[in-house]
């Protein structure tokens, strides 16, 4: 029983070591482009949602016309930059 247990523990330990070090031996050293794309896309969604919230605030009178226009312009600018980056990544 002790032998079986010891063997199982050694097997577990070896699997753990292999699981951790295997990417160092065979993986890619640069960050995959797909990951950057997903990240930028998520940022774009958040900014689009912020524009919607801004419009809502403006319509119920919680924000002045001046602030609304400036805020929407800034968010649109940020989205344009992300779209440009997304094009580059794609």
């Amino acid at each position: 029983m002790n032998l079986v247990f010891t063997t199982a523990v050694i097997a577990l330990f070896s699997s753990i070591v292999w699981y951790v070090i295997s990417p160092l031996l065979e993986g890619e050293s640069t960050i995959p482009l797909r990951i950057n794309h997903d990240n930028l896309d998520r940022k774009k969604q958040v900014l689009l949602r912020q524009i919607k919230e801004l419009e809502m605030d403006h319509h119920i009178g919680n924000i002045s016309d001046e602030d609304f226009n400036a805020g929407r312009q800034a968010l649109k600018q940020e989205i344009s930059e992300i779209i440009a980056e997304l094009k580059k990544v794609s």
Partner: protein
Amino acid sequence: MTPVLGSISLSLGLGLAAISIFLFSVFLQKADYRFFVGGWRAAVLVSALSILATFLLLNELLASNFDIRYVAHYTSLETPTIYKVTALWAGQSGSLLFWLFILSVYTLIVLFKYRNSYTALMPWVIIVLVIVQAFFLILVNFVENPFSPTVADFVVANGNGLNPLLQNLTMAIHPPTLYLGYVGFTIPFAFAIAALITKDTGSVWIRSIRRWTLIAWLFQSAGVILGGWWAYQELGWGGYWAWDPVENASFMPWLTGTAFLHSIIIQEKKGMLKTWNMILILLTFTLCIFGTFLTRSGVMSSVHSFAVSDLGPVFLGFIALILVVCTVLILVRLPILKSEKRIESFTSRESGFLFNNVIFLVICFAVFWGTIFPVLSEAVRGEKITVGAPFFNQVNVPIGLLLLLFTGIGPLLAWRRTSNQAFVRNFTLPILTGLIVFIACFILGIRNTTLVSFPLVGFVLAAILTEFQRGIRSRTSRFNESIFVALKTLISKNRSRYGGYIVHLGIVFMFIGFSGNAFDSELEFALKKGEVKEFDGYNFELVSIQTVERPNHMAWIAALNVWNIQHQLVTRLFPEKRVYFHRDPNPDKRQPHSELDIHTTLNKDIYSIFSGIDTEQQIAYLKIMINPLVWWVWFGGYVLVFGTLISLWPAKD
């Protein structure tokens, strides 16, 4: 064999935490993605092994393996299965392992959720999470190992059993809920540290952690409310909040966490309060660790503290380390934490948020001061001076009412500045409502704090309804929707905002419940079978006293008929007097306990406690309390949870 495997898992987990941190450090120096993947995998294993160790301990608790000291200490053969499970967090080492278990589950979610969304923040986020895991792994490996064997020169046939106060179903839910809150704040903390280190202090990290903060806050809120519910149901003093050190420990991070949830809106929308937000989240996490320290170290005597140990210095060392690192990081990054804009007007939503934040912090400081004062007084003067509930109530009730006022004012203010026209339009109805309630209370002869709290409740309720009405009107005019459709769409399309207003509604309901305290009444008396006692408009008749033996205790059950003055039966109450471990030959080990019974209605609770019995003469010693409006506290809690869930629910893209 299983305990050995448990200990091995914890040791391997600690080793892998060190490897993970090392691999991420190499990645940050060399920018070689392979090291990121290696570090990520090691971090996954740290969590997996910690979770495995927790399940192994749970297995031993269920199997009643008294060879393990923890199992022998907190369970017995008579302990019901559900309480064998809850014994996992009943003691020192088990609860530390449970902390680690929850953090590991959270960490695994972070690791897999952000697996394909690498940002510069992620390596640092994972490093911070693994460091916190490593701290708890050090504790369970070297200070309080839950798998330590029982030290006895005889075969341990049965264990001590669980503290009777913990043998309550609320206790099966309350600690895990609170821990989910405490531990949950580690995620936003990790993102904040990562943002400071990478100098990415804009709104990216704020957006990343908003949902995480809400999740932690939801559990923290539910945990605090459940703690109050447990105290009300189990401790038998008729209240739900006693400003006990452990209660305060759970309340403090809730206060700073709530302040943080409000002020990140300002940063997201206006680019302001960046330093403030950093301080708030770092403070919240530190208070979570401090809360765990208070609960676990035994430094404070508390009705909620079930552990005494020498963990204090280790926890204090960790808290000091967090404070030093965070302070240095904030000081170094001060130039990039400057706000992009300034508050322009006193009557702006920004200043409303800021006032609300300041109030939260003032309450937090008052609670902190009152909580640590006994320890400080003992350290400085050698005499332990305890600060009781009167101090906390005297300080916090007026500030709490001010906070309630700002809960109403905030949403009515416009961003940047509120024009006179908008001010009149938004505030007229709430102020009128508050005034009407005030006059009504005055005419009814109310002269205590409720003369302030009820009008404020009216003001805030009207303010929230005004916000809904403005939103609905906006939709009906723009999209020609019916009122019902407009309300539904308004909430579903603006979940964060309107979920928040529903949370405010919950808080208002809770304040109605708190106000009821001013009208509490109680009476202690003895009754023989068949006798009747009149109190506060009710007649209490002792019908019988029944004796019942259950597996882990002996119970005497008093059957009480409660009649109103019109001689109508209101309810039947069955409070119990119990003696736990009644079969133990050592009388010192038998534990008396009163299991109360409560009749709840919307306007009052009839709270009965069976405090003692004369078995020879069949006399029951009873305590009856009439607690008005308590139901509203729990109802407010449900509404708060419901509102937070709406805020959390993901919006359609």
